């Protein structure tokens, strides 16, 4: 995936931060929920159509002292997975 892609959250989807370490992305149209960890929440909050994947990864690295080397790949895979479920789309350039 192009790291300049700008993910944008499906506006119908609910981010429910149930506990400090556990959140759910809930699609009310299907009734399905997906558990996400705090890193996923960090990314989700930047899926606004303005941040590129590269920028999100950079912000993640800045926010976390121990971000792994494969963070960029993880962010891409996460966004691809969410796109596959219809939870996000990508801003048309």
């Amino acid at each position, binding site marked *: 995936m192009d790291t300049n892609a700008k993910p944008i959250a499906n506006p119908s989807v609910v981010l429910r931060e149930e*506990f400090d370490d556990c959140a759910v992305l809930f699609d*009310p149209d299907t009734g399905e929920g997906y558990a996400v960890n705090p890193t996923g929440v960090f990314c989700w909050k930047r899926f606004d159509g303005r941040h590129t994947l590269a920028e999100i990864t950079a912000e993640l690295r800045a926010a976390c002292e121990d971000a792994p080397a494969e963070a960029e790949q993880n962010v891409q895979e996460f966004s691809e997975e969410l796109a596959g479920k219809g939870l996000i789309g990508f801003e048309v350039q």
Partner: protein
Amino acid sequence: MKVMSTPRSLELAITNRCNLRCSYCYHFGSADDVDRDLPTAEWLQFFAELKECAVLDVTLAGGEPFLREDLRELVAGIVANRMRFSFLSNGTLITDELAAFLRNTGRCQGVQVSIDGEAPAVHDAARGRGSFDRAIAGLKALQRNGLPALVRVTIHKHNVHHLAKIARLLLEEYELPSFGTNAASYLGLCRLNANDLQLNAAERSLAMETLLELDRKYPGRIQATAGPLAEARMWLEMERARQTNAPATSGQGCLASCGGVFNKMAVRADGVMTPCGQLPHIELGRINRDSLRDVWQHHPELQRLRDRQAIPLTEFAYCRGCEYVAWCRGNCPALAYTLTGDDANPSPDACLKRFLEDGGRLPSER
């Protein structure tokens, strides 16, 4: 147990009105029976707060929720605020047009319809003449329109001998995937009609035996979270544990049966927030005046009900010496309240020791 930041679900009594007066209704004759309904704007304002709290779904109840003249506006407000919804209904007001409207929202999880008999004489005994035919018409409208119809059978003296016929009607003739069961419980109007409605130990034994047999005939298609089938499963498990002296699992031996206060809340028709639709006397605040998040996280009554889970059953004189105490969870706090005046007691209603003392017998295991 950790508490979520906000409740996941709410049960909303959107009206205090009902077109029936079922003799075991938990709503009427309780603190849930209030003298007014909130205007549309109040509910819509509250739905916006539910969105901010990331509440996932609401159950619309009453009274009879389909009596609300502004129902479509309320449903539109729920959908606009990114929630799903379901209904608790007597089924008598459901038309094809209404069912199609609900289906077309794409957010309706289902409509629970009460069916208590296989024929008018049985169903109408507790619900009033003509209600069976209208409830069945509502059920068929839901089915025709592809909306999940969740039938609930409330078991009482007048239908306990009809359970096999009811199961055949619902599962074979109407081809429902499943139905749920409970029992007329000592709540609301049932408290006035308990002798005429509630099962005695012998009838409860019969209901348990019959429902387990039906469960074997229709595997996985009869559900219960309360009432004779749930009790049969729970009590047989407790008896097995007693015989094998099995180690207690989490919550056993304490007042831990109800987890509702950890994930949901309720609102009365007058806008008062309560812990549960069956604990309507515990007033936690008022919608659009008090913050739902704040009430959920900090109200001392909710904290008290959550802390109830840690109260050991051995603190209660009646439970001391009970050979099942290590595996018991104390049962429903709402029934503990109506039967003993204190929700911090175990409920005598689903007490295995009491049931056996009253001459009840556990169903046979096959």
